[in-house]
């Protein structure tokens, strides 16, 4: 057995890790209590098998690519970084990328990850045409919106619980350049931030970095980043059409003592960040896609900033109607507590596609907290507010929500469970997350 954890390094649990080398060996690797794992960027316990964790990053081949349509067939272990590096220079990018490029295609499907364009263009699964799935029962199925559609909509966003994603066919977006034309707006409080995001609805990409230590009149002050793919004629003379993504140069070498993150250092950092951003506000400028989409990828192992005990990310979505009041309540509690992350992320989401897909029309707020003190109780308190507002918590980030919170948030659970049961009657596919949140006890 090996000690395994997600990106947040909480919880750390025992699971046997296997890395099969062929699809046949994947099939043989599935025993009672198995789940597939991509590049381990889920924050909590989603990609840890109850008994066995099946590492899929070795399956990293592109099977075919059609430059006329952008249609690509690939193995589940291909990382989005790999896809961007190989196909970006040829004018193609994934339609949807999350905040890190170091996720696998299989993981991106299982979490139906969203990006800064979810409000207009939807999630990762929307651009997946079909999936080759190895079910817990031992069948290998090609699933799509037309063929085995129940299995398809349970697999997109299904956290790997319908089986192991082996391959997928998806569409890439044609782009002229690897640059983003960025427009920064500074918002002095939550109302201004939400107005700016509403006004930015027509932008392809929009996201707000919110200062969650700011209080009183400053509560919710943020920088809103709108973005469009830059055309070739918008680049400076001599600029590369496609800038290369650097492998992270900066790395966090050791686990920082948890003292490093305190009220003062966070407050100072956020003050600086806000002022630097505000200086850039108003004007359009062109930035490489890497810092625009993946601001934290520049620092390897940034999860170590939170110290040995790890950290928790709390990402909720609040339906549109009550979002203003509910977000203000949450932010007020967080700012009074004072130990949340440097920067929180606020953005608008649209409709989700999969049965367990996280997005719903409204606002999502993501916050990081170091694991210490009474944080679990505090997050339970936030969860109650989320549930009362008809919201839910993102499974790919979750390590601690309660069954009650989960069941209240995900209305399609019973439908999902019925499909899962039909694909895997013996219940072989089980993760620590499913065990914690919804497997029959």
């Amino acid at each position: 057995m090996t000690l395994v954890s997600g990106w947040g390094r909480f919880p750390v649990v025992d699971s046997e890790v296997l890395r099969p080398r062929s699809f046949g060996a994947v099939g043989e690797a599935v025993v009672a209590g198995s789940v597939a794992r991509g590049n381990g960027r889920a924050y909590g316990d989603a990609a840890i098998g109850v008994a066995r964790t099946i590492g899929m990053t070795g399956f990293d081949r592109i099977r075919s690519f059609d430059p006329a349509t952008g249609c690509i067939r690939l193995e589940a272990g291909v990382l989005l970084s790999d896809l961007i590096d190989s196909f970006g220079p040829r004018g193609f990018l994934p339609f949807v990328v999350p905040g890190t490029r170091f996720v696998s295609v299989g993981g991106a499907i299982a979490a139906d990850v969203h990006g800064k364009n979810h409000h207009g263009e939807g999630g990762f699964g929307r651009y997946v045409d079909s999936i080759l799935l190895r079910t817990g029962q031992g069948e290998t199925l090609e699933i799509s919106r037309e063929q085995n559609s129940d299995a398809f909509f349970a697999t997109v966003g299904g956290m790997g619980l319908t089986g192991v994603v082996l391959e997928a066919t998806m569409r890439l977006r044609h782009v002229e350049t690897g640059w983003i034309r960025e427009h920064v707006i500074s918002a002095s409080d939550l109302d201004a931030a939400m107005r700016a995001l509403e006004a930015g609805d027509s932008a392809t990409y929009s996201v707000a970095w919110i200062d969650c230590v700011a209080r009183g009149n400053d509560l919710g002050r943020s920088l809103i980043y709108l973005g469009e793919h830059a055309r070739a004629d918008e680049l400076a003379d001599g600029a590369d059409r496609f800038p290369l993504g650097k492998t992270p140069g900066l790395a966090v070498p050791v686990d920082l003592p948890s003292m490093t993150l305190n009220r003062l250092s966070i407050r100072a950092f956020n003050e600086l960040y806000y002022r630097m951003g505000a200086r850039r506000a108003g004007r359009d400028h062109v930035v490489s896609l890497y810092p625009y989409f993946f601001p934290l990828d520049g620092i390897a192992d940034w999860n170590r900033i939170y110290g040995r005990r790890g950290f928790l990310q709390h990402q909720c979505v609040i339906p549109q109607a009550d979002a203003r009041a509910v977000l203000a309540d949450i932010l007020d509690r967080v700012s009074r507590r004072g130990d949340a992350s440097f920067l929180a992320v606020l953005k608008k989401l649209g409709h989700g596609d999969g049965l367990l897909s996280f997005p719903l029309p409204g606002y999502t707020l993501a916050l990081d907290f170091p694991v210490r003190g009474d944080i679990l109780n505090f997050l339970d308190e936030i969860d109650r507010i989320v549930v009362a507002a008809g919201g839910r918590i993102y499974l790919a980030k979750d390590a601690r929500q309660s069954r009650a919170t989960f069941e209240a948030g995900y209305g399609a659970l019973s439908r999902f469970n019925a499909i899962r049961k039909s694909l895997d009657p013996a219940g072989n596919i089980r993760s620590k997350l499913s065990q914690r949140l919804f497997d029959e006890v």
Partner: protein
Amino acid sequence: MTSRMSVLVLGGSSDIGRAAARAFAEAGYDVGLAGRDAAALEPDAADLRARYGIEANTWTFDVLDTASFEGFVAGLPALPDVVISIVGLLGVQQNAESDLAHATTIMRSNYEGPSLILGLFAERFLARGSGTVVGVSSVAGDRGRASNYVYGSAKAGFSAFLSGLRARVSRGGVHVVTVKPGFVRTRMTEGMKLIGPLTVDAPVVGDAILNAVEKKVDVVYVSGKWRLVMLIIKTLPEAVFKKLKF
């Protein structure tokens, strides 16, 4: 007709072989992948074609079947610009100490086969007046260690062969590269205890091979740290060395 350069990777299904093939394909080379099961290499060839828009083919090649080597080289539609042997077998030292057949397989896989096939290509390259031969050897060949001297001695022989070949053919326009990767996270080393700061991932080796070919480097220690480590290990007096456990 294409004017692209071409590389032939012997041992193309290994992790280092795949990494080297990707590095060369990304640099615009057409790629041949050779291994015992050509059909099993086809997905990797398809991957290279789709990713980099180059030509990629697969070939059947068994390093233990030395009798087939002449025919294998003659059967290629064109002589490649670069040939890389990544073939090797770590084996199990403890078994090799008493099982002659196992020891023989290790020796033949790491020395006899790779040397003979690269020697054959070098002759063809010499006749043409150009070409690069790359042998992936090992730091284990720098000094025999108690824990893996069957493998190490075969790699030592391979390194010596490449060194001599280099001296002979370099004036004829043919370049010979010896690669000593050190610890690499691959299928071969899965489950072994590797020293973190001395260990690299396969793509690092692939890039190092491409760099050595393009810059005409003779001997490459993939991680520079290994050059120092092996210098120390090589200079230890035998009387001291034999008392060490590693």
